[in-house]
């Protein structure tokens, strides 16, 4: 009959079969929660295998003494961590120079026995982080204040300021390698006269190389700070400035009483965010100088992971734990502002 060969739309849908249609129908019948978790499956798969699994496994490895190629791994508990801080494992760590003298209080108090602070890795990482983030904040704030003005060519100035942020780390490293290499750099001789960097072998001198790496990082990432601060500046209600101007406030008073307090939360997040990134420093050091000259925490992990796996894993987790302190700060800020 004619009515049976021309069924109406709803029944036609339900009568069609095949795996794809069946699947679609099952998805449609899922609840909102089920649907959400279904769409998140790829995220779980990717982050589970490439992030979560390695994290757990790294933690497990850090509890073992594992000399590659020599028999079965031996469970040693937290010994790898303890050895890091007592100087026992210093002989495995790269580099012969310790940047800072050992902070040995000695004997009676084993806890204060920070022999060269993980062979200076902790000191190098913290000094680099503090100095670079401090100057990046200062310069970034300045750049943001410039970009917040209306003027001709603002777009071009902004592009110019962002470009350093966008260039590959290896090229950033190459630039500073070429700028301060004693054979090519035009600056090295002058700076050496002032005693700022070593006159020869500049990039193999720990203090000089650390300074150069820090300058390189400030050059590249101030722009990132500037962008975050600029976003904060532009979210400030312009009406406030008009009110202040009518009330007779000077430019400085307007900055001190309106801009600064309102930008402070953004500034806090930006600083924590940069701190987290700065503590991972590896590539710039590897390409400007070398990991044995300027040992950062990540450097130590890379330098030891081939033959001292337990130690390397412990180092990775110490790095993660130190970064974790800053992360807690970020999460607390976000939690307070109600974003999560």
């Amino acid at each position, binding site marked *: 009959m004619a009515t049976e060969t021309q069924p109406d739309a709803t029944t036609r849908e339900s009568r069609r079969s095949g795996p794809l249609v069946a699947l679609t129908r099952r*998805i449609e019948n899922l609840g*909102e*929660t089920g*649907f*959400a978790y279904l*769409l*998140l499956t*790829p*995220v779980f798969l*990717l*982050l589970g295998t*490439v*992030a979560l699994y390695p*994290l757990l*496994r*790294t933690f497990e490895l850090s509890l073992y003494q594992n000399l590659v190629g020599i028999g079965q791994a031996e469970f040693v508990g937290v010994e790898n961590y303890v050895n890091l801080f007592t100087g026992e494992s210093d002989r495995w760590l790269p580099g012969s120079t310790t940047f800072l003298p050992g902070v040995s209080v000695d004997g009676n108090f084993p806890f204060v026995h920070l022999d060269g602070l993980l062979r200076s890795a902790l000191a190098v990482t913290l000094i680099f982080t503090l100095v670079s983030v401090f100057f990046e904040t200062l310069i970034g704030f*300045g750049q943001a204040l*410039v970009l917040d003005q209306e*003027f001709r060519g603002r777009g071009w*100035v902004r*592009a*110019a*300021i962002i*470009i350093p942020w*966008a*260039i*590959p*780390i*290896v*090229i950033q490293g*190459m*630039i500073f390698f*070429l*700028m301060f290499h004693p054979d*090519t750099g*035009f600056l090295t001789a002058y700076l050496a006269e002032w005693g700022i960097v070593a006159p020869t072998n500049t990039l193999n001198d720990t203090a000089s190389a650390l300074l150069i790496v820090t300058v390189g990082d400030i*050059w590249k990432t101030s722009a990132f700070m500037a*962008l975050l601060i600029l976003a904060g500046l532009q979210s400030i209600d312009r009406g406030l400035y008009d009110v202040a101007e009518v009330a007779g406030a000077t*430019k400085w008073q307007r900055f001190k009483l309106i801009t600064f307090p309102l930008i402070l939360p*953004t500034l806090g997040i*930006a600083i924590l965010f940069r701190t987290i990134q700065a503590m*991972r420093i*590896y*590539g710039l050091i*590897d*390409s400007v100088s070398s990991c044995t000259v300027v040992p950062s925490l*990540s450097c130590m*992990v*890379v330098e030891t992971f081939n033959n001292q796996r337990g130690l390397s*894993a412990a180092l*990775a987790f110490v*790095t*993660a734990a130190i*970064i*974790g302190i800053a*992360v807690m700060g970020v*999460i607390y800020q*976000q939690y307070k502002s109600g*974003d*999560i």
Partner: protein
Amino acid sequence: MATDPDSESNLGPLSRWTNRIITDQDARDRLYRGLFYAITVFFLVTTLFPFYWLLVLALTPNSEILSGGWDLPFLRPQGFNPAAFQEVFQQIPFHLYVLNSFILATLTTIIVLIIASLAGYVFGRLEFPGRGLLMLGILMISYFPPAAFLLPLFDAFVGNPIVAPFINVELFTPPRLVNTPGAMVLPFSALFLPLSIFILTTFYAQIPDGLEDAARVEGTTRLGALFRVIIPLSAPGVATAAVLTFISVYNEYFFSSIMSLQNEPQEWSPLVGGILSYQTQYTTEFNLMAAAAVIGVLPVVILVIIAQEKIVSGLTAGALKE
């Protein structure tokens, strides 16, 4: 005027000028504007000078670089040798390294966009139990240093069996991935996925509910509404995430240098390998190092100039609204 003309003529030019600044609104504005331009020029010079330095080095013949006779303070190329830009490709196949970087970045971007679009939609538009906790988890993972993932990933990529943590059960033996794109694309995707998820979550959350509801009332399925209404509307957000992911992969150093064992372009060594081989193999060819760096930097400079707005909005959304 606050001071009478007689006493003003006794003052030096500096004090006269200071007086004018204090009393005269116009003069003060001119001073502010002058200072503003001075600061702007200062920032421009400090950010762009290193690139000029690369160009100077690339164009100067290497013998001149080694003799080191720069005329300061106006640094300029000593001689003119554009052949360095050709020689870069003759010493090592530099273009292959750059091509590898492009392929790796494109592959990663595609994977990240597909996964992050779905996740961004879920986090931005659906309410379900565990949403806050999951976002927090993704945020936390994104803050771990790459070094914390290195050991097990390297183990797995050289073809050692995957062992379930803490229970010591061998699960399976993965294929040997080192020296293939997989060994880099996988960690890159995990590394840069969180940023894209947060950018897209913000974008999807801004799309009005009414549009999706209208599509559903019209009889479109839930998946249909997602693909026909929501995803097309989020195109600007997806483009932002794409640009940022591409740049991030092109710039990555940690896994790029470790997961490609020999720095050979046939084994998928990216830009990092190309630049570093100049540093390690041709240790005194400074003009070639500079020329290689100039070539390697060009793609991102062009991308920044074209996609400036997207980069700015994406970075601020990713960092501040996570």
